[in-house]
């Protein structure tokens, strides 16, 4: 994360390959539509080291999924991909992906970076056996016989904790339970030992007990393979459980970023406070009321001026000169490895957090 401070302050040329395993610089993904340009991601920078987990948190429409698809180069494909506008840089292991040819990115996809999705039932092809889908993923990147690939598939199914893998390899996705399907998805994603794993809400569709199993599995596999993991989720509980670093997105931009400990113990952005206050918590005394964020998520076509969060922010009027509504706040260093984009002064934030927010959580 330290390299980022340089890139952000802009005192170094950005074209150079970074030292981080994955580094995203000033990524913008815009989709022109009839109603206007949807700015799904609008200037996002972050980096992930191998063996570390970055959690991207945000609500639906905050741009977190588009970010992951952009890294994978997936949003450029298909009918919608023709009119996407994308800028910025994505460096994976020393290679730049935004400017790379689609075929170059395709070759990396599945081998160096892999992805698991929210709903494993719809994410697997209903007509093909689970084993065949894994075999397919393996054989795109490895010149091996079907038999060898199948052996590998069984091995992977076994590794992710599917009982009787030699039998289940011939099962169809619909014959698996939700948890088992997600395990099979993970097996498919990891079959080529990718160094970057992107998990897009991997446990949202699962029951809590299964969620615990899957999170455990991801953690163990990460330890074993030393891969970098990007975990996209809206569940702060999952984040606290698994992430080393946290990036909070709002309206296509990063509003707060830092180590998980920093962000959870000393959150600096009113939106992060809002998220924390909205969650009923099982580990605390039940408060009488939750403190929700008022209003609705912003439109990505007409993002509010100034700070995108200002219409929902209870503290938008504290900074002088109406600056919240006119000037877009940039990320600033607010602690050790901790950035936040907010006009509130450090004293105000400290006061609000300790006096108003923290006691209510």
């Amino acid at each position: 994360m330290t390299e980022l401070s340089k890139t952000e302050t802009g005192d170094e040329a950005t074209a150079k390959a970074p030292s981080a395993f994955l580094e995203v610089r000033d990524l913008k993904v815009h989709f022109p539509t009839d109603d206007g340009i949807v700015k799904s991601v609008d200037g996002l920078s972050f980096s992930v080291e191998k063996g570390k987990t970055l959690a991207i948190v945000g609500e639906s429409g905050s741009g977190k999924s588009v970010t992951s698809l952009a890294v994978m180069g997936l949003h450029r494909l298909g009918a919608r991909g023709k009119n996407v506008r994308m800028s910025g840089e994505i460096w994976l292991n020393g290679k730049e992906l935004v400017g790379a040819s689609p075929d170059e990115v395709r070759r990396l996809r599945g081998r160096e970076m892999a992805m698991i999705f929210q709903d494993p039932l719809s994410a697997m092809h209903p007509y093909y056996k689970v084993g065949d889908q894994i075999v397919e993923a393996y054989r795109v990147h490895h010149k091996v016989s079907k038999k060898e690939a199948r052996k590998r598939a069984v091995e992977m199914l076994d590794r992710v904790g599917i009982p009787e893998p030699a039998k289940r390899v011939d099962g169809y996705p619909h014959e698996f339970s939700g948890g088992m399907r997600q395990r099979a998805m993970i097996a498919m994603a990891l079959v080529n030992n990718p160094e970057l794993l992107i998990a897009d809400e991997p446990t949202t569709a699962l029951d809590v007990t299964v969620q615990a199993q899957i999170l455990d599995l991801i953690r163990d596999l990460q330890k074993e393979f030393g891969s970098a993991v990007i975990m996209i989720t809206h569940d702060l509980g999952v984040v606290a459980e698994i992430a080393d670093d946290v990036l909070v997105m709002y309206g296509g931009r990063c509003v707060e970023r830092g180590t998980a400990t920093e962000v959870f113990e000393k959150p600096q952005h009113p939106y992060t406070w809002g998220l924390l206050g909205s969650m009923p918590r099982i580990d605390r005394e039940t408060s009488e009321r939750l403190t929700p964020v008022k209003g609705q998520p912003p439109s990505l076509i007409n993002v509010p001026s100034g700070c995108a969060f200002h219409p929902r922010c209870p503290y938008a009027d504290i900074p002088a000169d109406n600056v919240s509504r006119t000037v877009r706040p940039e990320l600033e260093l607010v602690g050790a490895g901790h950035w936040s984009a907010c006009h509130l002064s450090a004293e105000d934030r400290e006061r609000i957090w300790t006096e108003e927010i923290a006691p209510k959580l």
Partner: protein
Amino acid sequence: MSETKKTDTAAKAAVPEQASAPDEREVLLKVENLTKHFPIKKGILRRQVGAVKAVDGIDFEVRKGETLGVVGESGCGKSTMGRVITRLQDPTGGKISFEGQDITRLSTGEMRPLRRDIQMIFQDPYGSLNPRHTIGSIVSAPFRLQGVEPEGGVKKEVQRLLELVGLSPEHYNRYPHEFSGGQRQRIGIARALALKPKLVVADEPVSALDVSIQAQVVNLMDDLQEELGLTYVIIAHDLSVVRHVSDRIAVMYLGKIVELADRNALYEAPMHPYTKALMSAVPVPDTTRRGQKSERILLRGDVPSPIAPPSGCRFHTRCWKATEICRTTEPQLVELKPGQRVACHHPENFADQAPQDTVLLSAAKEASELVPDTVLSGGSQDGTGSEADSRSEAESEAKSEAATGTSAEPEQEQEQEPGSKTEAVAESEAAPEPEAGSEGASDKEQASAAEESGSGAGSASGPEAEAAEPASSPEAAGDPEPVSGSDDAPKSPKPKGE
């Protein structure tokens, strides 16, 4: 069938509770031995070869003004239960009484007047509103259907309702697609409240919403309950949400209620191992607790198929405390503590209900590998050396604090460090026996028996453990069947949901 017997016991259990509970409120909805089976037909002649036992004999009552939360994993039958108690689906068996009136077999026409009193809120704020109708016509539909003319006219009443749920009255002529998910859920709530119902059954009312919006809707439902004196049955899979909104909570597993208790009692001292596992699995937004995996109980595999649920206690295939009796005898839902009903032979935080049965099933031994030591030693775990202390404590508390109905032991449990097992054992030896009743004696016997048999499941070492359990240990060593068996279960044909 055993269910009839079960009803009796449950009914008996319910009676003293009603008599003793301090704030006795009128029972609004009473459900007795409710079952809902979906037949599975197979073969050329489409004969019925089995049934999905979605709801398989549950009893509970909902009192006026309270919120009953129903939690459980997908496939436990909670949503079916919700649709059956509102009579959107017909029950297979059992009895549903609303305000003392038996509504189990009422026809659609006979139900109509009651539809005013019982309303439902659905999960999907997108699917449950007709996209071709304006908000005004959606919210006023109940008036039209029931032929009710509210004071001041329908339009005025609808606008009042919209305001009540936090929408603007000007939204009257708009269409659902113009609204966000949270707003649509508000519309759904407005529609449900139009006829001033007495009971609102909400099936996953907030799970499709974003976190910040979720909190808005939860608060709204809370306010409305206070304002209108509503009674809620809230069905959800999110334990944090259920805990926040409910007064009492029913935990369902495979069509049965395994635990039904007051919110605080349940969350502070869950008695059913399943409840405990479920709660421990909820991720908590607090990094300081990370790494303390010690408290998390991982369950093996998946929920078994409701077509052929396991014999005896349905949780025995995944439970780390399961013994022979759990496999053979179905535990009844009995009131162990005031306001806390549990269906378990070996409850946590309470005296063992089947102390003579100490030999763990092989599946339980495997399951216990995933259960942290704190839980094994903290709870009254069979086969571990330290159980006597927690059991006796739990029991003494249960007896001495029976009046208040709360207990302090969760603190004791949480305070226990992973390494404090030996301490716990020492304590158990020093702990005074609570009462010299027959129960205490059997307890003692069992404790010593368990100690003799070694710390079998806990540390999984020592030849004595194997010697003491000749029947099950070879199985555990050589055969992974039990667990994979339960994994396989969902493979069996999925029923057509009809």
